[in-house]
């Protein structure tokens, strides 16, 4: 039966095809395609979007899909069928939602690139579009992966694409370095992820997320193992639950790397060296989102491990605040956005750790729209400013580029969590979930909640500092006086995303449901469908949390919303006071010694560079010296000693025949004595 799901692979393959076309064009070295190869990319992502929407519709109709489509390899295990390593498609509410997000953002980024790259006369466009195509394809492959190994493989390919795209301007010194850093830091995280994948296979014999009734996926097996219905292999003498925690944390390593969580967040701000549309793609829908998506994808596995959940929550909460504070002092537009990304993904992690599966997914959705919007808006500004990103060189752009301004404003309001923009709803739900679960005897979550809450005003402050510096006040440079105009291909995506950033919150108005009892939390319902083991209520059953309220659910909802909104407005107001003036000045000196700390990103880069340059490299050099001196020295010494003894031995041959006679006699005598003694006839 040729259902819509049979076209599933096409979602991944279409962008891949556009990648191949672009590579072919790049190899030919000639201008074979109009627009530097953008058209195939746009067509492909549009096609994927259409298919994704169609699938979402099918999923909405209650259908789900989980099929193995390709057996990659089978490992021999004596006495069994062996360990199957496969590729498969898993289309369920979560993945179909993510598909729509990714394809939509990718399409918009492709379109935007027409304005940002093509119109700007960049060279190497086929290479750029090849990168975008592969990036999209990899991310889509990751999203639809039906097992952890396949997920890992596309996860890594996403990393490759980020390397290629961040380092797009390879002739300059910055981008290649940033690209290297991005790949290397995320690779460090992926190292743990890979161990995790291996461990999952070793533990359960499968890495399917869902599986079948007869052979369930590993989250279900983990559940069964803890219930004593299944014997999982554990290693290193650990108990079942402890081992699951270890495995979960290992996989989490990859998540922390890709989603730029503390302490592996350092690559992300540097990654701003890439073209701005790429940043949009990376931050909104692909690479960084991949980490969080992965946790959501295998949430059932984390849900059975309280320790892992606690770690996730704490890391997320801390990162949300930590990254936010760094965003406060940044001068470049994209830098601020970069730290906001880290911070926002921190929120999602917090939500996941706190049992807020829906909240995290919700924020993933809204964030995808408003962050893509902000980046594309920033791209529009940067384009207008001839690639000057310093906000202190801007100002007053509000009137000159109204479309950009208003859409950017919408995105900023969403980011700051101002009612009723999308970000408000999702962020509020995260804090709410954290609070109610924390109140029920989970001090760790309360700590996370405090972090998250503190990050709210910080977010609002840096967001609107950015808005005010960029768009308000007077133009501070000539470029800002007369910015370059941008065309439809820039404005179009901004408008689409601006609308979404404004209204996307409507998909899950959980507070409204609490208030009115109306079932307006559509996303909750959406995620509660599909495979029974992957539903929201199933997760709620197996996770270690239950809820407690301050005075009752309604009170808590209102209180939480009010507090977070109030804090957001506080931050906004502060920003307004400081920066919404015609001639804003840097107020960073007021921070005192904290200023340097924030400028230098808490010396996170420094210590990591120190580790690389002052620890690892010297160790490597020492190893090299050791290798040359001792190991190879031993080899050469053997040879020298042999040759030296050779040159000594030949001296026996004196050239005087009388000596020879004497030596012959001596030799014979020695033999006589020795063998006489041995033979027993002498002495």
């Amino acid at each position, binding site marked *: 039966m040729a259902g819509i799901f049979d076209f599933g692979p096409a979602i991944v393959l279409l962008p891949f095809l556009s990648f191949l076309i672009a590579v072919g064009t790049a190899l030919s070295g000639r201008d074979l395609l109009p627009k530097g190869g953008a058209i195939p990319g746009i067509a492909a992502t549009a096609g994927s979007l259409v298919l994704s929407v169609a699938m979402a519709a099918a999923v909405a109709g209650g259908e789900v899909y989980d099929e193995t489509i390709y057996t990659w*390899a089978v490992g*021999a295990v004596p006495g069994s069928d062996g360990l199957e390593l496969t590729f498969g498609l898993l289309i369920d509410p979560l993945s179909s939602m993510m598909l729509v997000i990714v394809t939509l953002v990718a399409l918009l980024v492709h379109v935007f690139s027409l304005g940002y790259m093509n119109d700007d006369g960049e060279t190497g466009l086929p290479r750029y579009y090849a990168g975008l195509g592969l990036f999209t394809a990899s991310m889509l492959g990751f999203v639809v992966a039906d097992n952890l190994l396949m997920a890992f493989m596309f996860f890594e*390919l996403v990393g490759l694409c980020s390397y290629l795209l961040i380092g797009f301007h390879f002739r300059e010194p910055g981008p290649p370095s940033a690209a290297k850093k991005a790949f290397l830091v995320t690779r460090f995280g992926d190292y743990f992820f890979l161990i995790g994948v291996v461990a999952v296979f070793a533990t359960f014999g499968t890495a399917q997320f869902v599986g079948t009734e007869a052979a369930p996926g590993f989250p279900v097996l983990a559940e069964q193992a803890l219930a004593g219905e299944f014997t999982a292999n554990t290693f290193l003498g650990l108990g079942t639950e402890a081992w699951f925690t270890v495995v979960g944390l290992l996989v989490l390593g990859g998540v922390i790397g890709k989603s730029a969580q503390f302490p592996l967040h350092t690559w992300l701000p540097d990654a701003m060296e890439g073209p701005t549309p790429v940043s949009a793609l990376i931050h909104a829908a692909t690479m960084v989102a991949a980490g969080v998506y992965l946790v959501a994808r295998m949430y059932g596995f984390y849900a059975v491990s309280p320790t892992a959940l606690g770690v996730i929550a704490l890391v997320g909460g801390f990162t949300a605040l930590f990254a936010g504070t760094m965003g406060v002092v940044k001068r470049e537009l994209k830098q601020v956005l970069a730290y906001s990304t880290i911070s926002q993904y921190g929120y999602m992690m917090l939500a996941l750790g706190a049992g807020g599966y829906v909240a995290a997914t919700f924020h993933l959705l809204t964030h995808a729209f408003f962050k893509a919007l902000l980046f594309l808006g920033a791209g529009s500004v940067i384009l207008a400013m001839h690639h000057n990103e310093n906000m202190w060189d801007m100002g007053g752009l509000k009137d000159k580029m109204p479309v950009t301004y208003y859409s950017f404003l919408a995105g900023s309001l969403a980011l700051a969590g101002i009612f009723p923009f999308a970000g408000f709803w999702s962020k509020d739900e995260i804090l709410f979930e954290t609070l109610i679960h924390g109140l029920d005897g989970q001090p760790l979550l309360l700590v996370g909640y405090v972090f998250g809450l503190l990050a709210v005003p910080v977010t609002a402050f840096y967001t609107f500092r950015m808005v005010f510096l960029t768009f308000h006040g007077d133009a501070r440079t000539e470029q800002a006086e007369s910015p370059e105009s941008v065309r439809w291909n820039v404005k179009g995506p901004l408008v689409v995303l601006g609308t979404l950033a404004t209204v996307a919150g409507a998909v899950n108005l959980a507070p409204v449901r609490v208030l009115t009892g109306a079932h307006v939390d559509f996303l909750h319902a959406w995620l509660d469908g599909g495979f029974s083991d992957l539903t929201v209520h199933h997760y709620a059953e197996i996770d270690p949390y239950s809820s407690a309220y301050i005075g009752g659910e309604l009170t808590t909802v209102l209180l939480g919303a009010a507090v977070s909104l109030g804090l957001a407005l506080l931050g906004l107001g502060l920003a307004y006071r400081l920066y919404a003036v015609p001639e804003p000045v840097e107020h960073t000196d007021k921070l005192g010694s904290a200023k340097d700390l924030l400028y230098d990103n808490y010396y996170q880069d420094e210590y990591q560079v120190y580790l690389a340059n002052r620890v690892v490299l010297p160790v490597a050099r020492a190893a090299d010296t050791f*290798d040359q001196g001792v190991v190879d020295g031993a080899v050469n010494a053997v040879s020298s000693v042999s040759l030296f003894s050779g040159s000594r031995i030949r001296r026996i041959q004196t050239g005087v025949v009388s000596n020879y006679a004497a030596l012959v006699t001596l030799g014979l005598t020695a033999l006589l004595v020795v063998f006489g003694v041995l033979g027993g006839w002498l002495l």
Partner: protein
Amino acid sequence: MIIEALIGITFLAALVVMLAPDEYAGKLAFALSLLPVVGSLYMWAGFDAGGNALMAGSIAYQTQLDWLTVAGYDLQWFVGVDGISLPLVVLSTVLSSLAIVSAWTPIDTRQSQFYGLMLFMEANLLGVFTALDFFLWFVFWEAVLVPMYFLIGVWGGPRRKYAAIKFFVYTNIASLVMFIGFMALVFNLPVGSFGLPEITQSLQAGELSSFVGLDPATLKLAAFAAMFAGFAVKVPVVPVHTWLPDAHVEAPTPVSVMLAGVLLKMGTYALLRFNFTMLPDVATRPLVATVIAAIAVISVIYGAMLALAQQDLKRIVAYSSVSSMGYVILGLIAYTGLGIGGATFQMVAHGLISGLMFMAVGVIYNVTHTRMVGDMSGMADRMPITVGILVAGAFGYMGLPLMAGFAAEYFIFQGAFASTVIPSAPLFTAASMFGIVIVAGYLLFAMQRTLFGEFSLETDYEVRRAHFHDVAPLAVLLLCTIALGVAPNIFFEMITDAIEPVVAVVGGGA
């Protein structure tokens, strides 16, 4: 008879090319080298053997003729392939052809001798991978050294003579040590020939008798140690690896390709065939397994650290070969289907990828006449396609999914993690896996400094784009790498089939 034809044709081709005039030697050698490629692919297409050749599996394209009798033992012309050897045969033929093409630009003296020796080496390599009689195998095994000595010594870099003799003597000592160990085993078995299957099966039937006061178990241990030491040099593993960087740095590009691509695999192939297939009961002793696993991990990490400290691109790749071979050792000692299968697969995968890396570095060297990281930058600007392929190859080396290296390394990791043979297998596995981070580190740093940034070059050579025939082999290797990464079953299925009996003896897990 096809194996005889393959080896015979290659020998003949070597002879013809030796006698050909220098101007045509390269092209003639390439044309002739396509014959074995076609032959090996034909063998692959018609391959229908099952099981392990040494363990009573059916052997494909088998020929068995008596050659001579020595000390009451029959020595035979006994060749054939199974799922372990066939991929390596294909690798040898394909890589030889490509290496010959890659030599067209850099080799500009005594060409007919060069290409003749390359083909001569190929013929012997084919012999190594197909021989199933110990002495026959040993003849080919040692005979590979001779052309290699000349190829490094005549056409190499400034310290070529030192490197050549070091390679020559070091690996020769290793062979001798191994020989003594193996012979001590054979003479205490009730076998009538040096046929490897017969010896293996007799050993596994527990027919070993004691020798000079050593009981069979001790004798096995001693023989295992001697053979391991001997093969370890060839692989090479730390600490007997130091000949390799010297040989690689001095060898001309095509020779490095063959050295890293195929010659190193002789060592791991032999380890698998001899140590791990014949003496599983020794290898699986906890202490032995621990030591070998430790050697593997040290090779991986230490080799990678050494690569990190290098400035010469070729040295970087050379040390990273040490690192990659460490994975193979880990996979072998795991004694699991994926472990040993992955190790075998890694032999092929690393052959392709390291060949690709050496070739790409060679193409850049042809143009810039330097390989030092500090001497150049921004090569991507001048040689976009070469650099593009080099970057792809480097990512392959780092174990990028859907390229052969990832498949191999993943199989190994998966296999080693659950190994019941290595004590604390997850710790060893996790430790060795850290190699994938370091490899990314040194390759990314080196690429950043040489390929990207503003173009500059310390030497004053004119930088031209590479010839088509320089780049074409790179592209072919890259495509092979991707093909194997996407569809490992091109080889992995037959490998699995052949190693399953080995694993079954131990009864290991996944």
